[in-house]
């Protein structure tokens, strides 16, 4: 068993980054996630693992530092919250277009605009569907506990490098700010130059040696035929990810008549709602997507044959519900319940919504 600690979601991201051998963090302060960089700066990993930590002048700069670092084959990450992620979306599109592996943490807060600093899940469309320009996808992981915040740092890097694609941890202010018991992974060494050569030497800008052609990291291709080929290659990769990397948790779905579909902090609330609903005699289960891209489409489709209806619970006006409806494909009713502006619904509020929108409907 690893070291047990009580830590905030944001703090554990920093700890996990250092421990998994991350090479560099570039970020800009924004509530509710500033503890990530504060914890890193406090731990001074440059004196131990050699990890670089730099406070950039903006999120725009941070995400482009990610590009520069990732393009040399290093394991680099950034973190921000919703308005900062909006600034980064240009860079995210370039990272995806240049197929650069890296990790981005979004600790969501309520929008639009400056909005609120309280928790939200209103960036689902932005982060899962793209956000930046062009046909691209991020691998999106949705932690619902501090332990998962920890675990998804290394998982995010692993998936990012496996598919040469940016990965995002899509969290929210509640998960970022709360403390839970967490088991920390043992310290791993950062990759050596030789390991980087072996893993990414075919494309990374590690310096052009006499025995190979120059490596150029770019998303630019003015030849339309070739650019379409590039896009087809990306799409094939995304299909591969969809096929191999779906992660979800099904809680008490076996005998369920009704299913809550919820991720992150909403899924935690739904666990309490499920207890209340079952006490009331409703057989309710939870399907918690852990990966939002790839989305557990097949798993939800399979449930649609068995249950009477679905309620998606999100801290937004209804975003993931569209993907649930596409998965269910009209077989059963799919309703949405959400609060906005940083308000987190009470577990009993969710049960009432289930009764009114799905059971009674």
């Amino acid at each position: 068993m690893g070291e047990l600690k009580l830590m905030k979601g944001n703090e554990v991201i920093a700890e996990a980054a250092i421990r998994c051998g991350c090479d560099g963090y570039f970020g800009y302060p924004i509530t509710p996630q500033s503890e990530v960089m504060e914890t890193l700066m406090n731990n001074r990993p440059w004196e131990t693992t050699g990890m670089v930590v730099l406070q950039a002048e903006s999120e725009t700069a941070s995400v482009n530092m990610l590009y520069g670092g990732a393009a040399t084959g290093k394991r680099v990450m950034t973190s921000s919250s919703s308005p900062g992620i909006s600034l980064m979306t240009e860079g995210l599109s370039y990272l995806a277009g240049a197929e650069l592996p890296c990790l981005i943490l979004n600790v969501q807060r309520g929008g639009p605009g400056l909005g609120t600093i309280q928790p939200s899940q209103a960036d689902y469309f932005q982060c899962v569907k793209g956000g930046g320009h062009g046909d691209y996808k991020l691998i999106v992981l949705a932690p619902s506990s501090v332990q998962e915040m920890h675990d998804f740092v290394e998982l995010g890097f692993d998936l990012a490098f496996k598919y040469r694609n940016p990965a995002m941890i899509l969290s929210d202010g509640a998960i970022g700010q709360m403390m839970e018991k967490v088991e920390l992974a043992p310290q791993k060494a950062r990759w050596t130059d030789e390991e980087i050569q072996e893993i990414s030497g075919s494309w990374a800008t590690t310096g052009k040696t006499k025995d190979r052609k120059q490596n150029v990291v770019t998303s630019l291709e003015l030849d339309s035929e070739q650019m379409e080929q590039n896009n087809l290659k990306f799409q094939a990769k995304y299909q591969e990810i969809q096929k191999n990397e779906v992660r979800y948790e099904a809680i008490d779905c076996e005998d369920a008549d009704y299913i809550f579909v919820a991720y992150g902090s909403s899924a935690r609330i739904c666990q309490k709602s499920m207890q209340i609903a079952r006490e009331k005699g409703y057989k309710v289960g939870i399907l918690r997507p852990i990966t939002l891209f790839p989305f557990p489409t097949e798993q939800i489709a399979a449930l649609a044959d068995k249950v009477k209806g679905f309620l998606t619970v999100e801290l937004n006006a209804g975003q993931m519900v569209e993907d649930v409806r596409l998965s269910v494909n009209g077989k059963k009713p799919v309703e949405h319940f959400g609060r906005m502006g940083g308000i987190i619904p009470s577990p009993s509020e969710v049960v009432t919504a289930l009764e009114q929108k799905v059971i009674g409907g």
Partner: protein
Amino acid sequence: MTEEIIIAGFGGQGVLSMGKILAYSGVMQDQEVTWMPSYGPEMRGGTANVTVILSDDRISSPILHEYDTAIILNQQSMDKFEKTVKIGGTLIYDPNGIIHPPTRKDINIYKIDGAKKAAEMGNPKTFNMIILGGYLKIKPVVLPENVKKGLEKSLPERHHKLIPLNLEAIQLGQDSIEAVHLT
């Protein structure tokens, strides 16, 4: 066992650190714990509150709207949280600064003169530990030796010399809390 607690008061009363020590004590006896603070500008001198959940099982929602126990340390929090205590639940408050004491008859109410006792100890910073002691007397959810371990884990090394003082304050709290019987 699951215990869902809200601790609410002013920023600076040690609300968050009290919750953290309680949560760490739970970790020390292998419980699942969640500590969820209110955060944002309100932290800067305004009201502060934290939800702490200790459980032998996986914890569901970290954010709650009703609690087994409310520990209330100012009037604003009384106004907000008295009504959130579950029927049959527990409300603990410090009467210092409370103009409208709790009135519910379907819950168990206790009071503890934390501010006064801290002043008597000659160290106002022991306030939150006195309150914690009072709470642990009523709800012994964590063992005393695990509270000590919790203190060791949550306080930075340079403050470890203060642990005996904190334990003393916890003991004082245990001795000071009293039930309030509404008629």
